[in-house]
Structures are given as C-alpha cells and as structure tokens.
C-alpha cells in the first residue's frame, strides 16, 4: 500500500468519524457515537501507517528523513496528533460527544493536505533542515498545536452548552468541559514552550542566532502571550467558563496564523509552505 492511498483512506475515515459523532450528538444515538470511536481508531491506524510508509519510502528514494519536513507532512502529522490526543481523552473521561467538536478538525487538516495546491511529493531536505532538531522541534510544536486545537473544540462545545437548548443537555457538564479546556491549554502551553525552545536551540546551531524576530517566531511568541494570559487570568483571577472559552478561541486563531498565515509573510520558515 502506498502512503498516499493510506492517507486518502484516513481522510475518508476521519470524515466518517466526524459525521458519526455529530449525528450521534444531534440525534442522541449512542451506537453512532460508538461507531465514531471505532472509525477514529481505524483512521489512526491508517494515519500511522501512512506516516510510516512515507518515512520508509523516503529512505528507499535515498533521501531518507522523518516525514515532518513540509506543509503536507505537517498537516498529516497534525491530524494524527489531534486524533491520538482525542482518543486518549475519550478513553479517560468516557464522553463521546466531545468527538463531534474535535474530529472535524482532524478531517479538515487532512482535507487541506489533499488539495492540489499542497505539494505531496517526497522532497530531499534542504541543508538547513538537516538536523536532529527537526523531529524534536516539529513534534513538540504540533503536540502544542493539537492541544490548543482540542481546547478550541471544547470551547465551542462549552459555548453551545451554555445556550440551553435541545442539543446542549447531552453534552458533558460545564464544570467538566471547563476543566478539560484548561487541561488542554496547559498541555498545549507546555509543548508550545518546548517547541519554541527547541526551535531556538536549532536556530542557534544553524544560523547562529536563537531568536531573529522572524514572523513565525514572533507569531509563536504572540500565541504564547495569549495563552499565558489565559493561564494567569484563570489561576490568579479565577476566570473560567465563557471568558476562558473566548480567549481560547482567539488563541487558536493565533495558532492557525502561526501555522498558515505566516507563510504569506517572508521569513526563515519559507520551506514550510
């Protein structure tokens, strides 16, 4: 099986899982939610296979490197991290409705990767990317992004929950969603910090400067500031619920801009296009 076939199946599976979770939530059918779980697990298996096959074929082409080197590969990894973190939360908290707000993100990420504008060929690494820091940097950054993506999905869920209507009462309790949003923000913040730091150490060995105010660096710092505000507002001023949800949504917008928007601006990360 080729990597692109595995990932096409994955995209389809994530889409199906997202539909199952959303229908399960709206029509209050537990068997739909349950099939969402199975579809997600199958999708994760295919997603993992796709990544591993791509990794192997890059070695067969003689330009072996971890599949974390361009936009396509990062999108594939992003949906993988979202799905894996989601499934572990589902396992721990036994609330399947969360899937309706998270799986669409994994699906969207992979759908974007399948667009013809995104180059999906395996390319050799440019000299600047040839470093052991590549894996550490991209891995930590995307764990961080995925944490914030989940916090975003949960925030949307929280806002729907507070609107008292037919769809809101099978969602988990506000207290639990609130706690989960915060957990995901803490997780994301730790890994975003690790991502920025590994990036800085790498930049210092590649270019001789750990911080250059490159737009992507600056935007990651802006994102860091926003989530630092969330954490301080919550711990020191007792903010919770709606207000935290809204800042978490703004924070995720900053994450998306750090990820995609910055490519519109010139800078050191130009190869991530």
């Amino acid at each position, binding site marked *: 099986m080729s990597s692109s076939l595995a990932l096409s199946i994955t995209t389809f599976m994530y889409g199906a899982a997202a539909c199952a979770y959303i229908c399960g939530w709206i029509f209050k059918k537990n068997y739909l939610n349950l099939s969402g779980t199975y579809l997600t697990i199958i999708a994760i298996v295919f997603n993992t296979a796709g990544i591993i096959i791509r990794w192997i074929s890059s070695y067969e082409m003689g*330009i072996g490197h971890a599949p974390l080197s361009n936009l396509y590969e990062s999108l594939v990894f992003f949906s993988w991290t979202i799905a894996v973190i989601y499934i572990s939360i589902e396992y721990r908290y036994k609330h399947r409705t969360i899937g309706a707000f998270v799986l669409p993100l994994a699906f969207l990420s992979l759908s974007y990767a399948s667009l013809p504008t995104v180059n999906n060929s395996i*390319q*050799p*690494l*440019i*000299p*600047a990317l*040839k*470093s052991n820091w590549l894996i550490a940097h991209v891995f930590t950054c995307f764990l961080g992004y995925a944490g914030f993506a989940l916090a975003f999905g949960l925030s949307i869920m929280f806002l729907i929950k507070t609107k008292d209507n037919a769809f809101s009462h099978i969602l988990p309790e506000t207290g639990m969603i609130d*706690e989960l949003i915060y957990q995901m923000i*803490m997780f994301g*913040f*730790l890994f975003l*910090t*690790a991502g920025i*730091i590994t990036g*800085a*150490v790498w930049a*210092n*060995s*590649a*270019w*001789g*400067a*750990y*911080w250059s*105010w490159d*737009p992507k660096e*600056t*935007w990651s*710092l*802006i994102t860091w*500031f*926003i989530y*630092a*505000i969330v954490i*301080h*507002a919550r711990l*020191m*001023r007792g903010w919770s619920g709606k207000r935290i949800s809204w800042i978490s949504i703004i924070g995720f917008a900053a994450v998306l801009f750090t990820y995609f928007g*910055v490519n519109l*601006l010139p800078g050191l990360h130009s190869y991530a296009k």
Partner: protein
Amino acid sequence: MKIKSQKNAMWLFFSSVKLSVFLLFTLALVSVFGTIIAQGQSIEYYKSTFGHLWGTVILLIGMDDTYHSFWYRLLMGLLSLNIIVCSIDRLFATWSIIFPKTHTVKTNRFRNKPDRQIFNARCTMTQLRDPIRLFLSKKWTHFELFSTDTGFYCYGETGRKSRLGVYAVHVSILLMITGGIIGSFFGFDGYIQISEGESTNHLVIGQNQKIELPFTIQCDDFSVSYYDNGTPSEFKSILTLKRDNNTFFTRPILVNHPLRYEGINIFQSSYGLLTAEYRQKLPETVVLFFQNPKTRLSYPVKGKLNERVPLPEGKGFFTIQNYQASYRFSGHHLGPTLTLLLEIKSGNKSDDTVMPQLVMIPVQYPKFDHMRQGYFVISVMNETDFRIPESEKRYYTGLQITKDPGIYLVYTGFIMMLIGIFVTFFMSHRQYFVEVMENSSGTCQVLVTGIANKNKLGMIQKLGKLKQELQNIDTHCRTIEGKI
C-alpha cells in the same frame, strides 16, 4: 508614614496580575504590528506603502524596527519588574508553607472536610498501628504520627516543593531577558565572505563597526553537493584557524554543524561563485538538435565554430558564427548564446531559393527557438558542455560569525522554564490526613481525607486509592491474626 503608603501603592501596582495581563496583551498586540509592517526598510518604502503621514508616524515611533525600539524594551522592562515584584511578594507567603519551621496539624480542618471518607476496620487499633505507620511513612515524603485519646492519626505531605515551580518559570524569563541583554552588549553577530584560499581576521558589522577576531580564519576549500533533482544537499567549507603562523586546526563546517572556538561561533551561512557559471569560449564541438515540428523527427548534428555543416533532410547548411558567454536580448539576460547562420531552402529541390538568416540559440533555454516558427526548432543538446566543470570553479564562502556570552543564561532559562512549567502544571502539593479511632466494641473506624493546591479532581482519585490500600492492609492484618 506618607512615604510608606506611596511605596505600598507602587508595590501593589507592580505586583498586580492585572498589570501582567495588560503587559502580555500589549506585547502581543505590538508584536502583531511588527509582523505586518515590514521591518528594516527604507524611508521611501514606508512613505510609499503607508502614505506620507502614516509612513512618518511609523518611522517616528520606531515601528520600522519594532522589537528593538525603545518602548518595546520598556514593555519588556516593565514585565521583568512585574515578575520580580510579584515573585518576591508571593514567595514570602509560600516560603513558610514550603519550608515550615514549626507547624501544627489543623486536625479539625481535616476531620470536618465534607468529602472525608470513613470505613470500618475489622482489626483493632493496636494491630493496625504498625502496618499503617510503615506503609504511610514510605508513601509520603513528609510523615507525622500523633496519638490521640481514642487512637492515632497520621499526617503527611507530598510535592511540597512543587510550589516552587511557578517561581522557576518566572525566574527563567528573567534569565532569558538578562542573557539577551548581555548578548547584545558583549556579543556580536556579523557576516563575512572569504574566497577559497584566502583568509581574514576581522569583520565589519553595520556601517563602520570593525571587530578584530582573536584568530585568522582561512577558507581552504568550499564545495556544494547536489541531489539528483538539482537542489543543493550540502554546503561545506574547510576552514583553518590560525594565529601568528601558528595553525590551530583544520576542520570542515556545514549548515547545522558550526565551529565553536574561543567563544566565537562560525556558521556556514551562504556561498557564491567567483568564476562564471559558463565557459567564456565555445567547446571544441557542439551537438545541436534539429527538430522538425511537423514530423516530430529530431536530428542531432555536430558543429564547430565557422564550419559550414549540411542541415538534416537536405534543407541546406548552417554555420556557428559566434558564441557569447552572456547575451542580452531586448532587456533579458539570456546567458550563453550561439549565433547560427542558417541557409535554408524554401522547398526540396536543389535549385530552390536559399534564404540566409541569423538565429540566436540560448544554451539555457531549449524552447526559445520555438518562437521563430522556422522549419527546424534548434536547441543545444547538452547544456552541461558549456558549463565550467566543478573542478575549475572558484567559490567564496559566506560565514556568520557570532559571539554571545549571554547564551549560557538563556539556555539555563530554557531548561528551567520547561521543568518549571511541567512542575507547575502537572504536580501539586498534597496534604493527607488518616485517622484511626477505636470504638467501644474494640473495632475501629478509619478516616481518610486530604487537600491539594491544584488538580482537585486528581486528589479525589488519589484519596479513593489510598482508602482502598488501607482497607487492603486491614484485610491483610485480619488474615494474619486469624492464622495465629
């Protein structure tokens, strides 16, 4: 008295979380503008892009170099002050919790906790006392046992020092800022170009700041290797470092593999060609490709300078009249180009009229001749024959030379921040309270409760587990007693 109250007002201002949130928000907002407005451009650029008024405003407030402007540094300074004052303020309160000189267990606080859990043990108080003491003193980092009128209670703590995590995070930010400041005052960051075989011992930064290096850098060799698809795979400079005819060592440097010596770092940054890409003279023989666009038949034909060669399909003759290593055509740079004299027949008979014409064949652009729409589309068969071979090329290497004595502080800050954030988010200070009370009947009741400064949900799970473990001890005791 008045001075003191003023000082308190200042202290309160700088220790407030509102100020931190305000500063973080402002820094984020300003940074956004810094990425939208292109940095480090000319006056003309700002005036033409943003209009005269806004262009002037941008330059006036230093938004052309936002992150080094006075007020960006002011915001950073205020944030540092905020962190220092906040940390001192709160550390006074937490210090006595983390390192208490004497402390008394507030038993009533635990005994009356609404979520306390109680179970009835089957063993007697004296039977339970030793196993419980042994078990809990191993489990908790801090352990105390007190006897009461009806039995005993154990008080314990774990993760007391996790309260320090948050201070580690804040101090790490101060370390990074200090490291950055030290780097900008006592370090430098410059760029030099050295041709193969040459050397230098100084670099120029900005307009006129000349820095003498403690040694001479000599570039012995530079090479580029390529992937099959033609993109560069590696740049490599062989450098020799020496001082006063005293050679230290020769070492290769690559991108991502810098050379660090005597506090100075040398990075492979860029490279360039000193010689031209293409030959100045025409190679001995040239193979040209004549394609008939109608029949799609192609004919490779050898040619030499000023030699009249028959065309394929008996269409006449061509002569290579001239070769220019760089040719300009209506404002475009076409690179190496051949000039051909074509004597092509209009028909197929031997007495057909011959139309002599001059044709330009740029070596790099094989499709260029399509535009002429002639009988043949002519191109050069092997472009690489015109290139100067790798062995004859001369390069210069572009090196980034830096010195940063603040880097150790910054890296210490990095490590401290990661550990600090982990401890702050995922560890908590937990206090446990287990009391065993004897009933009149000889059996006893066990009370389990506790408090945590963070992650209360996790604490409830921990307490549930602790209760289970104590019940197991009780059952275990019982079976041993039974056997005796």
